[in-house]
Protein backbone atom coordinates (compact mmCIF):
# COMPACT_ATOMS: atom_id res chain seq x y z
CA UNK A 1 0.00 0.00 0.00
CA UNK A 2 2.33 2.83 1.06
CA UNK A 3 5.65 1.20 1.97
CA UNK A 4 7.65 1.88 -1.12
CA UNK A 5 5.89 3.30 -4.12
CA UNK A 6 5.32 0.73 -6.85
CA UNK A 7 3.56 2.05 -9.91
CA UNK A 8 1.88 -1.21 -10.80
CA UNK A 9 1.53 -4.01 -8.30
CA UNK A 10 0.90 -7.08 -10.34
CA UNK A 11 -0.17 -10.26 -8.67
CA UNK A 12 -1.34 -13.63 -9.88
CA UNK A 13 -5.01 -12.72 -9.58
CA UNK A 14 -4.65 -9.58 -11.67
CA UNK A 15 -2.69 -11.39 -14.36
CA UNK A 16 -5.31 -14.15 -14.63
CA UNK A 17 -8.10 -11.54 -14.68
CA UNK A 18 -6.40 -9.61 -17.48
CA UNK A 19 -5.59 -12.70 -19.52
CA UNK A 20 -9.20 -13.85 -19.35
CA UNK A 21 -10.38 -10.39 -20.35
CA UNK A 22 -8.05 -10.16 -23.34
CA UNK A 23 -8.89 -13.70 -24.43
CA UNK A 24 -12.61 -12.96 -24.31
CA UNK A 25 -12.12 -9.80 -26.39
CA UNK A 26 -9.93 -11.58 -28.94
CA UNK A 27 -12.51 -14.36 -29.30
CA UNK A 28 -15.32 -11.85 -29.72
CA UNK A 29 -13.46 -9.87 -32.39
CA UNK A 30 -12.56 -13.03 -34.25
CA UNK A 31 -16.12 -14.42 -34.15
CA UNK A 32 -17.59 -11.09 -35.24
CA UNK A 33 -15.38 -10.76 -38.31
CA UNK A 34 -15.43 -14.47 -39.12
CA UNK A 35 -19.23 -14.72 -39.02
CA UNK A 36 -19.50 -11.60 -41.19
CA UNK A 37 -17.27 -13.26 -43.77
CA UNK A 38 -19.39 -16.40 -43.64
CA UNK A 39 -22.55 -14.38 -44.29
CA UNK A 40 -21.03 -12.81 -47.36
CA UNK A 41 -17.43 -12.86 -48.59
CA UNK A 42 -18.09 -9.59 -50.45
CA UNK A 43 -18.74 -7.58 -47.32
CA UNK A 44 -16.29 -4.74 -46.83
CA UNK A 45 -14.08 -5.94 -43.97
CA UNK A 46 -12.80 -2.48 -43.06
CA UNK A 47 -16.31 -1.44 -42.09
CA UNK A 48 -16.90 -4.76 -40.32
CA UNK A 49 -13.78 -4.24 -38.21
CA UNK A 50 -14.98 -0.80 -37.17
CA UNK A 51 -18.22 -2.35 -35.98
CA UNK A 52 -16.40 -5.23 -34.30
CA UNK A 53 -14.34 -2.90 -32.11
CA UNK A 54 -17.22 -0.54 -31.48
CA UNK A 55 -19.60 -3.30 -30.45
CA UNK A 56 -16.91 -4.92 -28.29
CA UNK A 57 -16.42 -1.65 -26.43
CA UNK A 58 -20.17 -1.14 -26.03
CA UNK A 59 -20.73 -4.66 -24.71
CA UNK A 60 -17.78 -4.35 -22.33
CA UNK A 61 -19.23 -1.10 -21.03
CA UNK A 62 -22.41 -2.97 -20.12
CA UNK A 63 -20.37 -5.65 -18.35
CA UNK A 64 -18.46 -3.02 -16.39
CA UNK A 65 -21.59 -1.13 -15.42
CA UNK A 66 -23.21 -4.37 -14.28
CA UNK A 67 -20.44 -5.26 -11.83
CA UNK A 68 -21.17 -2.55 -9.26
CA UNK A 69 -24.87 -3.23 -8.70
CA UNK A 70 -24.40 -7.00 -8.98
CA UNK A 71 -21.84 -6.83 -6.16
CA UNK A 72 -24.36 -4.93 -4.07
CA UNK A 73 -26.92 -7.65 -4.68
CA UNK A 74 -24.70 -10.72 -4.41
CA UNK A 75 -21.21 -10.97 -2.95
CA UNK A 76 -20.30 -13.73 -5.40
CA UNK A 77 -19.64 -11.04 -8.01
CA UNK A 78 -16.96 -9.34 -5.88
CA UNK A 79 -14.03 -11.01 -7.73
CA UNK A 80 -15.10 -9.11 -10.85
CA UNK A 81 -14.88 -5.84 -8.94
CA UNK A 82 -11.32 -6.45 -7.91
CA UNK A 83 -9.72 -5.43 -11.21
CA UNK A 84 -12.62 -3.59 -12.82
CA UNK A 85 -10.44 -0.64 -13.71
CA UNK A 86 -8.40 -2.79 -16.09
CA UNK A 87 -11.66 -3.58 -17.88
CA UNK A 88 -12.41 0.10 -18.09
CA UNK A 89 -9.06 1.01 -19.58
CA UNK A 90 -9.37 -1.87 -22.06
CA UNK A 91 -12.82 -0.65 -23.03
CA UNK A 92 -11.42 2.82 -23.67
CA UNK A 93 -8.79 1.39 -26.01
CA UNK A 94 -11.38 -0.64 -27.89
CA UNK A 95 -13.44 2.53 -28.37
CA UNK A 96 -10.35 4.44 -29.45
CA UNK A 97 -9.50 1.84 -32.09
CA UNK A 98 -13.12 1.97 -33.27
CA UNK A 99 -12.76 5.73 -33.67
CA UNK A 100 -9.29 6.27 -35.09
CA UNK A 101 -8.01 2.82 -36.00
CA UNK A 102 -4.79 1.05 -35.18
CA UNK A 103 -1.74 -0.05 -37.12
CA UNK A 104 0.45 -2.55 -35.30
CA UNK A 105 3.38 -1.88 -37.60
CA UNK A 106 3.44 1.81 -36.68
CA UNK A 107 4.07 1.21 -32.97
CA UNK A 108 7.48 2.18 -31.60
CA UNK A 109 10.10 -0.55 -32.03
CA UNK A 110 7.75 -2.53 -34.28
CA UNK A 111 8.12 0.14 -36.97
CA UNK A 112 11.84 -0.67 -37.10
CA UNK A 113 11.24 -4.26 -38.13
CA UNK A 114 12.23 -5.21 -41.68
CA UNK A 115 8.74 -6.58 -42.34
CA UNK A 116 5.21 -5.28 -41.81
CA UNK A 117 2.98 -6.95 -39.27
CA UNK A 118 -0.35 -7.47 -41.04
CA UNK A 119 -2.67 -6.08 -38.39
CA UNK A 120 -4.33 -2.80 -39.19
CA UNK A 121 -7.75 -1.43 -38.41
CA UNK A 122 -9.11 1.68 -40.13
CA UNK A 123 -11.05 3.80 -37.69
CA UNK A 124 -14.49 5.26 -38.26
CA UNK A 125 -13.08 8.78 -38.38
CA UNK A 126 -10.96 8.02 -41.43
CA UNK A 127 -13.37 5.55 -43.04
CA UNK A 128 -16.22 8.02 -43.09
CA UNK A 129 -14.45 11.37 -43.20
CA UNK A 130 -11.26 10.97 -45.20
CA UNK A 131 -12.62 10.99 -48.75
CA UNK A 132 -13.09 14.70 -49.10
CA UNK A 133 -10.92 17.77 -49.00
CA UNK A 134 -11.61 18.56 -45.35
CA UNK A 135 -9.42 17.35 -42.53
CA UNK A 136 -11.21 14.27 -41.15
CA UNK A 137 -11.63 15.79 -37.70
CA UNK A 138 -13.05 19.00 -39.17
CA UNK A 139 -15.36 16.93 -41.36
CA UNK A 140 -16.41 14.96 -38.30
CA UNK A 141 -17.79 18.02 -36.54
CA UNK A 142 -18.75 20.15 -39.55
CA UNK A 143 -20.40 17.43 -41.63
CA UNK A 144 -23.59 17.28 -39.59
CA UNK A 145 -24.71 20.26 -37.58
CA UNK A 146 -28.34 19.29 -36.96
CA UNK A 147 -28.06 19.77 -33.20
CA UNK A 148 -31.68 20.87 -33.09
CA UNK A 149 -33.00 17.59 -34.43
CA UNK A 150 -33.35 14.32 -32.56
CA UNK A 151 -33.01 11.71 -35.29
CA UNK A 152 -30.55 13.79 -37.30
CA UNK A 153 -28.54 14.70 -34.20
CA UNK A 154 -24.79 14.34 -34.88
CA UNK A 155 -24.45 10.92 -33.32
CA UNK A 156 -20.69 10.90 -33.95
CA UNK A 157 -20.33 13.88 -31.62
CA UNK A 158 -22.05 11.82 -28.94
CA UNK A 159 -19.45 9.12 -29.51
CA UNK A 160 -16.67 11.68 -29.14
CA UNK A 161 -18.17 12.88 -25.85
CA UNK A 162 -18.34 9.31 -24.56
CA UNK A 163 -14.79 8.58 -25.65
CA UNK A 164 -13.48 11.79 -24.07
CA UNK A 165 -15.01 10.88 -20.71
CA UNK A 166 -13.63 7.36 -20.93
CA UNK A 167 -10.22 8.83 -21.72
CA UNK A 168 -10.40 11.02 -18.63
CA UNK A 169 -11.31 8.00 -16.55
CA UNK A 170 -8.59 5.85 -18.09
CA UNK A 171 -5.80 8.35 -17.39
CA UNK A 172 -6.95 8.78 -13.78
CA UNK A 173 -7.58 5.11 -13.17
CA UNK A 174 -4.31 4.59 -11.30
CA UNK A 175 -4.21 4.70 -7.49
CA UNK A 176 -1.82 7.64 -7.77
CA UNK A 177 -4.79 9.82 -8.77
CA UNK A 178 -7.02 8.18 -6.20
CA UNK A 179 -4.60 9.11 -3.45
CA UNK A 180 -3.98 12.65 -4.67
CA UNK A 181 -7.53 13.56 -5.60
CA UNK A 182 -8.92 11.70 -2.52
CA UNK A 183 -11.54 9.02 -2.84
CA UNK A 184 -14.70 11.20 -2.88
CA UNK A 185 -13.40 13.47 -5.68
CA UNK A 186 -11.96 10.58 -7.63
CA UNK A 187 -15.24 8.70 -7.26
CA UNK A 188 -17.21 11.73 -8.35
CA UNK A 189 -15.03 11.99 -11.46
CA UNK A 190 -15.49 8.32 -12.25
CA UNK A 191 -19.22 8.56 -11.85
CA UNK A 192 -19.09 10.42 -15.13
CA UNK A 193 -19.19 6.95 -16.61
CA UNK A 194 -22.96 7.37 -16.50
CA UNK A 195 -22.75 10.47 -18.67
CA UNK A 196 -20.52 8.48 -21.03
CA UNK A 197 -23.07 5.65 -21.00
CA UNK A 198 -25.89 8.01 -21.92
CA UNK A 199 -23.78 9.53 -24.71
CA UNK A 200 -22.85 6.12 -26.09
CA UNK A 201 -26.42 4.80 -25.99
CA UNK A 202 -27.33 7.92 -27.96
CA UNK A 203 -24.41 7.28 -30.32
CA UNK A 204 -25.76 3.81 -31.12
CA UNK A 205 -29.48 4.70 -31.10
CA UNK A 206 -29.05 7.74 -33.32
CA UNK A 207 -26.32 6.14 -35.43
CA UNK A 208 -26.27 2.45 -36.21
CA UNK A 209 -29.92 1.82 -35.37
CA UNK A 210 -31.13 4.60 -37.63
CA UNK A 211 -29.86 2.84 -40.74
CA UNK A 212 -29.62 -0.77 -39.60
CA UNK A 213 -33.21 -1.78 -39.08
CA UNK A 214 -32.59 -5.42 -38.27
CA UNK A 215 -34.71 -6.13 -35.18
CA UNK A 216 -31.92 -8.09 -33.50
CA UNK A 217 -29.72 -5.00 -33.12
CA UNK A 218 -32.58 -2.93 -31.73
CA UNK A 219 -33.60 -5.68 -29.32
CA UNK A 220 -30.07 -6.30 -28.06
CA UNK A 221 -29.37 -2.61 -27.45
CA UNK A 222 -32.77 -2.17 -25.81
CA UNK A 223 -32.26 -5.17 -23.54
CA UNK A 224 -28.85 -3.89 -22.52
CA UNK A 225 -30.37 -0.55 -21.59
CA UNK A 226 -33.16 -2.20 -19.62
CA UNK A 227 -30.72 -4.50 -17.81
CA UNK A 228 -28.41 -1.70 -16.70
CA UNK A 229 -31.30 0.49 -15.62
CA UNK A 230 -33.12 -2.24 -13.70
CA UNK A 231 -30.16 -3.65 -11.78
CA UNK A 232 -29.03 -0.18 -10.81
CA UNK A 233 -32.44 0.74 -9.52
CA UNK A 234 -32.80 -2.53 -7.59
CA UNK A 235 -29.35 -2.09 -6.02
CA UNK A 236 -30.07 1.57 -5.28
CA UNK A 237 -33.32 0.77 -3.50
CA UNK A 238 -31.56 -1.91 -1.46
CA UNK A 239 -28.86 0.56 -0.47
CA UNK A 240 -31.39 3.23 0.44
CA UNK A 241 -32.93 0.83 2.92
CA UNK A 242 -29.51 0.52 4.52
CA UNK A 243 -29.33 4.29 4.87
CA UNK A 244 -32.42 4.44 7.02
CA UNK A 245 -31.39 5.67 10.46
CA UNK A 246 -31.70 3.31 13.39
CA UNK A 247 -35.18 3.34 14.92
CA UNK A 248 -34.63 3.27 18.61
CA UNK A 249 -37.23 2.14 21.06
CA UNK A 250 -35.59 4.43 23.56
CA UNK A 251 -34.27 7.88 22.71
CA UNK A 252 -30.50 8.29 22.40
CA UNK A 253 -28.81 9.08 25.66
CA UNK A 254 -25.34 10.44 26.22
CA UNK A 255 -24.78 10.30 22.46
CA UNK A 256 -25.12 6.54 22.25
CA UNK A 257 -27.72 4.80 20.12
CA UNK A 258 -28.72 1.17 20.31
CA UNK A 259 -27.92 -0.66 17.10
CA UNK A 260 -29.04 -4.17 17.99
CA UNK A 261 -28.07 -7.33 19.82
CA UNK A 262 -24.75 -9.14 20.02
CA UNK A 263 -26.59 -12.12 18.56
CA UNK A 264 -27.28 -10.14 15.36
CA UNK A 265 -23.64 -10.21 14.35
CA UNK A 266 -21.81 -13.38 13.29
CA UNK A 267 -18.35 -13.82 14.73
CA UNK A 268 -15.58 -12.07 12.72
CA UNK A 269 -18.27 -10.26 10.76
CA UNK A 270 -20.07 -6.95 11.04
CA UNK A 271 -23.42 -5.31 11.09
CA UNK A 272 -23.68 -2.11 9.04
CA UNK A 273 -25.83 0.59 10.55
CA UNK A 274 -26.54 4.18 9.66
CA UNK A 275 -25.55 6.48 12.48
CA UNK A 276 -25.67 10.26 12.23
CA UNK A 277 -25.96 10.13 8.45
CA UNK A 278 -23.08 7.79 7.68
CA UNK A 279 -22.65 4.06 7.79
CA UNK A 280 -20.80 2.41 10.62
CA UNK A 281 -19.44 -1.14 10.62
CA UNK A 282 -19.85 -2.84 13.98
CA UNK A 283 -17.58 -5.88 14.15
CA UNK A 284 -17.72 -8.76 16.59
CA UNK A 285 -14.53 -10.71 17.14
CA UNK A 286 -12.73 -12.56 19.96
CA UNK A 287 -15.51 -11.80 22.46
CA UNK A 288 -15.35 -8.06 21.73
CA UNK A 289 -17.19 -5.46 19.69
CA UNK A 290 -15.65 -2.51 17.84
CA UNK A 291 -17.10 0.07 15.51
CA UNK A 292 -15.37 1.88 12.68
CA UNK A 293 -16.49 3.88 9.66
CA UNK A 294 -17.89 1.60 6.95
CA UNK A 295 -16.01 3.55 4.29
CA UNK A 296 -12.62 2.16 3.27
CA UNK A 297 -10.07 4.87 2.71
CA UNK A 298 -8.89 3.24 -0.52
CA UNK A 299 -11.93 3.37 -2.77
CA UNK A 300 -14.72 3.84 -0.23
CA UNK A 301 -15.50 0.12 -0.26
CA UNK A 302 -17.90 -1.28 2.39
CA UNK A 303 -15.68 -2.40 5.27
CA UNK A 304 -18.68 -3.88 7.03
CA UNK A 305 -19.03 -6.44 4.27
CA UNK A 306 -15.52 -7.67 4.91
CA UNK A 307 -14.11 -10.05 7.47
CA UNK A 308 -11.96 -9.91 10.53
CA UNK A 309 -8.74 -11.63 9.40
CA UNK A 310 -5.38 -11.86 11.21
CA UNK A 311 -6.41 -9.27 13.75
CA UNK A 312 -7.57 -6.78 11.11
CA UNK A 313 -10.80 -5.68 9.54
CA UNK A 314 -10.33 -6.47 5.86
CA UNK A 315 -12.07 -4.65 3.03
CA UNK A 316 -13.81 -7.07 0.65
CA UNK A 317 -12.96 -5.01 -2.43
CA UNK A 318 -9.17 -4.83 -2.47
CA UNK A 319 -8.05 -6.25 0.87
CA UNK A 320 -7.10 -3.01 2.64
CA UNK A 321 -6.88 -3.68 6.39
CA UNK A 322 -7.55 -1.70 9.56
CA UNK A 323 -6.99 -2.45 13.23
CA UNK A 324 -10.38 -2.49 14.98
CA UNK A 325 -9.39 -0.47 18.03
CA UNK A 326 -7.69 2.39 16.19
CA UNK A 327 -9.13 2.31 12.67
CA UNK A 328 -5.54 2.54 11.44
CA UNK A 329 -3.85 0.21 9.00
CA UNK A 330 -1.19 -1.95 10.61
CA UNK A 331 2.33 -0.48 10.36
CA UNK A 332 4.01 0.41 8.11
CA UNK A 333 0.81 1.36 6.28
CA UNK A 334 -0.71 4.74 7.02
CA UNK A 335 -4.37 4.58 5.99
CA UNK A 336 -6.90 5.13 8.77
CA UNK A 337 -10.64 5.56 9.21
CA UNK A 338 -12.74 7.11 11.99
CA UNK A 339 -13.68 4.94 14.95
CA UNK A 340 -16.72 5.02 17.21
CA UNK A 341 -17.00 4.37 20.95
CA UNK A 342 -18.98 1.21 21.66
CA UNK A 343 -20.72 -0.08 24.77
CA UNK A 344 -22.28 -3.48 25.43
CA UNK A 345 -25.10 -3.34 27.97
CA UNK A 346 -26.41 -6.82 28.58
CA UNK A 347 -26.76 -8.24 25.11
CA UNK A 348 -27.46 -4.85 23.49
CA UNK A 349 -24.83 -2.91 21.57
CA UNK A 350 -24.66 0.88 21.77
CA UNK A 351 -22.60 3.01 19.38
CA UNK A 352 -21.63 6.63 19.83
CA UNK A 353 -23.08 9.05 17.31
CA UNK A 354 -19.91 11.12 17.41
CA UNK A 355 -17.00 9.67 15.41
CA UNK A 356 -13.46 9.78 16.71
CA UNK A 357 -10.81 11.13 14.37
CA UNK A 358 -9.12 8.49 12.21
CA UNK A 359 -6.51 6.54 14.11
CA UNK A 360 -7.91 7.34 17.58
CA UNK A 361 -7.34 4.58 20.13
CA UNK A 362 -10.86 3.35 20.96
CA UNK A 363 -11.06 0.37 23.31
CA UNK A 364 -13.34 -2.42 22.20
CA UNK A 365 -16.39 -3.28 24.26
CA UNK A 366 -16.22 -6.71 25.87
CA UNK A 367 -19.14 -9.12 25.64
CA UNK A 368 -20.07 -10.43 29.11
CA UNK A 369 -18.47 -13.85 29.59
CA UNK A 370 -21.80 -15.44 30.44
CA UNK A 371 -23.16 -14.31 27.09
CA UNK A 372 -20.02 -14.87 25.08
CA UNK A 373 -20.59 -18.54 24.57
CA UNK A 374 -24.09 -17.90 23.32
CA UNK A 375 -23.15 -14.98 21.02
Amino acid at each position, binding site marked *: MSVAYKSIQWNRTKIIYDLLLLAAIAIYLFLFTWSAQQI*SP*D*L*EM*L*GIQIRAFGSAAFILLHVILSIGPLCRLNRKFLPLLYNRRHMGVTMFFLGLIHAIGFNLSSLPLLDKLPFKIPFKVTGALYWYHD*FGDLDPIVSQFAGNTHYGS*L*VRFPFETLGVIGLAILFLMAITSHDFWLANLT*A*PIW*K*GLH*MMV*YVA*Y*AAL*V*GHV*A*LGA*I*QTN*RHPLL*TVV*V*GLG*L*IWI*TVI*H*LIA*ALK*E*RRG*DQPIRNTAPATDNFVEIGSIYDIPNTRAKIVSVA*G*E*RVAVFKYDGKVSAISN*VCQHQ*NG*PLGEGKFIDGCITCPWHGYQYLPETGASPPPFVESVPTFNVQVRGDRIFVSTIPNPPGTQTPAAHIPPELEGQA
Partner: protein
Amino acid sequence: MIHERRQTHFWSFVALACILPLGFLASLLLRPSYGPAASSSTSLFDNAGFTPSVTPDEIEVLKQVDWADAVVPIKGEAIKVTEAGAPQVLLAVTPSRAIQQPDVLVYWLEGKQASTDALAENALFLGSLVGTSRRAFTVPTAMQGKAGNLLIYSQGKDSVLSALPLSADMTTP
Protein backbone atom coordinates in the same frame (compact mmCIF):
# COMPACT_ATOMS: atom_id res chain seq x y z
CA MET B 1 -19.12 4.88 -0.94
CA ILE B 2 -19.87 7.86 1.25
CA HIS B 3 -23.47 8.90 1.78
CA GLU B 4 -23.22 11.96 -0.42
CA ARG B 5 -21.93 9.94 -3.36
CA ARG B 6 -24.61 7.32 -2.84
CA GLN B 7 -27.25 10.02 -3.01
CA THR B 8 -25.74 11.44 -6.22
CA HIS B 9 -25.55 7.94 -7.62
CA PHE B 10 -29.16 7.24 -6.82
CA TRP B 11 -30.68 10.41 -8.21
CA SER B 12 -28.49 10.49 -11.31
CA PHE B 13 -29.59 6.97 -12.13
CA VAL B 14 -33.23 7.81 -11.55
CA ALA B 15 -32.74 10.59 -14.10
CA LEU B 16 -31.03 8.22 -16.55
CA ALA B 17 -33.73 5.59 -16.03
CA CYS B 18 -36.31 8.16 -17.14
CA ILE B 19 -34.37 9.88 -19.94
CA LEU B 20 -32.62 6.98 -21.66
CA PRO B 21 -35.61 4.73 -22.37
CA LEU B 22 -37.60 7.73 -23.62
CA GLY B 23 -34.74 8.80 -25.87
CA PHE B 24 -34.27 5.25 -27.15
CA LEU B 25 -37.96 4.86 -27.95
CA ALA B 26 -38.05 8.27 -29.60
CA SER B 27 -35.08 7.37 -31.78
CA LEU B 28 -36.95 4.26 -32.96
CA LEU B 29 -40.35 5.84 -33.48
CA LEU B 30 -39.02 8.91 -35.24
CA ARG B 31 -36.73 7.01 -37.60
CA PRO B 32 -37.23 8.56 -41.03
CA SER B 33 -38.22 6.32 -43.88
CA TYR B 34 -35.77 6.97 -46.66
CA GLY B 35 -38.16 7.50 -49.50
CA PRO B 36 -38.49 9.96 -52.38
CA ALA B 37 -38.33 13.62 -51.62
CA ALA B 38 -41.46 15.69 -51.37
CA SER B 39 -42.93 17.26 -54.53
CA SER B 40 -41.64 20.65 -53.43
CA SER B 41 -38.07 19.47 -53.97
CA THR B 42 -38.67 18.28 -57.57
CA SER B 43 -37.36 21.51 -59.04
CA LEU B 44 -34.17 21.17 -57.01
CA PHE B 45 -33.50 17.77 -58.53
CA ASP B 46 -34.32 19.06 -62.03
CA ASN B 47 -31.90 21.94 -61.64
CA ALA B 48 -29.22 19.58 -60.40
CA GLY B 49 -29.54 17.46 -63.54
CA PHE B 50 -31.30 14.50 -61.99
CA THR B 51 -33.51 12.45 -64.30
CA PRO B 52 -37.27 12.97 -63.98
CA SER B 53 -39.26 10.68 -61.80
CA VAL B 54 -41.62 8.69 -64.03
CA THR B 55 -44.06 5.84 -63.59
CA PRO B 56 -43.17 2.47 -65.17
CA ASP B 57 -45.85 2.71 -67.88
CA GLU B 58 -44.26 5.90 -69.15
CA ILE B 59 -41.01 4.10 -69.85
CA GLU B 60 -40.21 2.56 -73.22
CA VAL B 61 -37.27 0.21 -73.19
CA LEU B 62 -35.33 0.65 -76.41
CA LYS B 63 -32.46 -1.75 -75.83
CA GLN B 64 -31.19 -3.98 -73.08
CA VAL B 65 -27.88 -5.51 -72.16
CA ASP B 66 -27.06 -7.80 -69.26
CA TRP B 67 -23.62 -7.89 -67.63
CA ALA B 68 -24.29 -10.89 -65.41
CA ASP B 69 -20.65 -11.89 -64.95
CA ALA B 70 -19.32 -8.51 -63.90
CA VAL B 71 -17.88 -7.94 -60.43
CA VAL B 72 -21.00 -5.85 -59.83
CA PRO B 73 -23.60 -7.66 -61.98
CA ILE B 74 -25.87 -5.09 -63.59
CA LYS B 75 -28.44 -4.73 -66.34
CA GLY B 76 -28.28 -1.77 -68.67
CA GLU B 77 -31.20 -0.31 -70.57
CA ALA B 78 -31.60 2.53 -72.98
CA ILE B 79 -35.03 3.87 -72.01
CA LYS B 80 -37.19 6.57 -73.47
CA VAL B 81 -39.27 8.61 -71.09
CA THR B 82 -41.70 11.30 -72.04
CA GLU B 83 -42.28 14.14 -69.68
CA ALA B 84 -44.52 17.08 -70.60
CA GLY B 85 -44.57 15.86 -74.18
CA ALA B 86 -40.80 15.96 -74.48
CA PRO B 87 -39.19 12.57 -75.06
CA GLN B 88 -35.82 11.90 -73.47
CA VAL B 89 -33.51 8.92 -73.74
CA LEU B 90 -31.82 7.88 -70.54
CA LEU B 91 -29.36 5.18 -69.62
CA ALA B 92 -30.85 3.03 -66.86
CA VAL B 93 -28.65 0.74 -64.78
CA THR B 94 -30.08 -1.82 -62.36
CA PRO B 95 -27.91 -4.04 -60.14
CA SER B 96 -28.88 -7.68 -60.52
CA ARG B 97 -28.26 -8.29 -56.84
CA ALA B 98 -27.60 -6.08 -53.84
CA ILE B 99 -24.32 -4.27 -54.27
CA GLN B 100 -21.78 -5.35 -51.73
CA GLN B 101 -19.00 -3.03 -52.75
CA PRO B 102 -18.49 0.30 -51.00
CA ASP B 103 -19.45 3.61 -52.59
CA VAL B 104 -20.00 2.42 -56.15
CA LEU B 105 -19.92 5.12 -58.83
CA VAL B 106 -20.61 4.80 -62.56
CA TYR B 107 -18.39 6.49 -65.16
CA TRP B 108 -18.27 6.29 -68.91
CA LEU B 109 -15.13 6.33 -71.01
CA GLU B 110 -15.08 6.63 -74.76
CA GLY B 111 -13.18 4.01 -76.67
CA LYS B 112 -13.21 0.33 -77.51
CA GLN B 113 -11.37 -0.79 -74.45
CA ALA B 114 -10.83 0.63 -71.01
CA SER B 115 -8.28 -0.29 -68.40
CA THR B 116 -9.30 -1.25 -64.89
CA ASP B 117 -5.92 -0.34 -63.47
CA ALA B 118 -6.97 3.17 -62.64
CA LEU B 119 -9.83 5.56 -63.26
CA ALA B 120 -9.07 7.56 -66.38
CA GLU B 121 -9.00 11.28 -65.85
CA ASN B 122 -11.26 11.93 -68.85
CA ALA B 123 -13.93 9.48 -67.71
CA LEU B 124 -17.37 11.08 -67.53
CA PHE B 125 -19.12 10.77 -64.20
CA LEU B 126 -22.73 9.52 -64.49
CA GLY B 127 -23.84 8.82 -60.93
CA SER B 128 -23.84 6.34 -58.09
CA LEU B 129 -25.24 2.86 -57.64
CA VAL B 130 -26.52 1.41 -54.42
CA GLY B 131 -28.53 -1.57 -53.30
CA THR B 132 -30.75 -2.92 -56.04
CA SER B 133 -32.18 0.43 -57.06
CA ARG B 134 -32.59 1.18 -60.72
CA ARG B 135 -30.77 4.38 -61.57
CA ALA B 136 -31.49 6.36 -64.69
CA PHE B 137 -28.65 8.59 -65.85
CA THR B 138 -28.92 11.50 -68.21
CA VAL B 139 -26.67 10.82 -71.22
CA PRO B 140 -24.19 13.73 -71.45
CA THR B 141 -23.71 15.35 -74.84
CA ALA B 142 -20.12 14.09 -75.01
CA MET B 143 -21.38 10.55 -74.68
CA GLN B 144 -24.31 10.61 -77.10
CA GLY B 145 -24.05 8.26 -80.06
CA LYS B 146 -20.59 7.04 -79.11
CA ALA B 147 -19.33 3.63 -78.14
CA GLY B 148 -17.42 3.32 -74.96
CA ASN B 149 -17.22 1.50 -71.67
CA LEU B 150 -19.14 1.83 -68.46
CA LEU B 151 -16.64 1.94 -65.63
CA ILE B 152 -17.90 0.61 -62.32
CA TYR B 153 -15.70 2.32 -59.75
CA SER B 154 -15.55 1.77 -55.99
CA GLN B 155 -14.70 4.97 -54.22
CA GLY B 156 -14.23 3.07 -50.99
CA LYS B 157 -11.62 0.79 -52.50
CA ASP B 158 -10.35 3.42 -54.96
CA SER B 159 -10.38 0.88 -57.74
CA VAL B 160 -12.19 0.24 -61.00
CA LEU B 161 -14.16 -2.93 -60.46
CA SER B 162 -15.35 -3.50 -64.02
CA ALA B 163 -15.12 -1.99 -67.50
CA LEU B 164 -18.28 -2.96 -69.39
CA PRO B 165 -18.53 -2.33 -73.12
CA LEU B 166 -21.44 -0.05 -74.05
CA SER B 167 -22.42 0.18 -77.70
CA ALA B 168 -23.24 3.46 -79.38
CA ASP B 169 -26.91 2.58 -79.84
CA MET B 170 -27.28 2.53 -76.06
CA THR B 171 -26.35 6.18 -75.92
CA THR B 172 -28.11 7.50 -79.00
CA PRO B 173 -30.54 10.27 -78.05
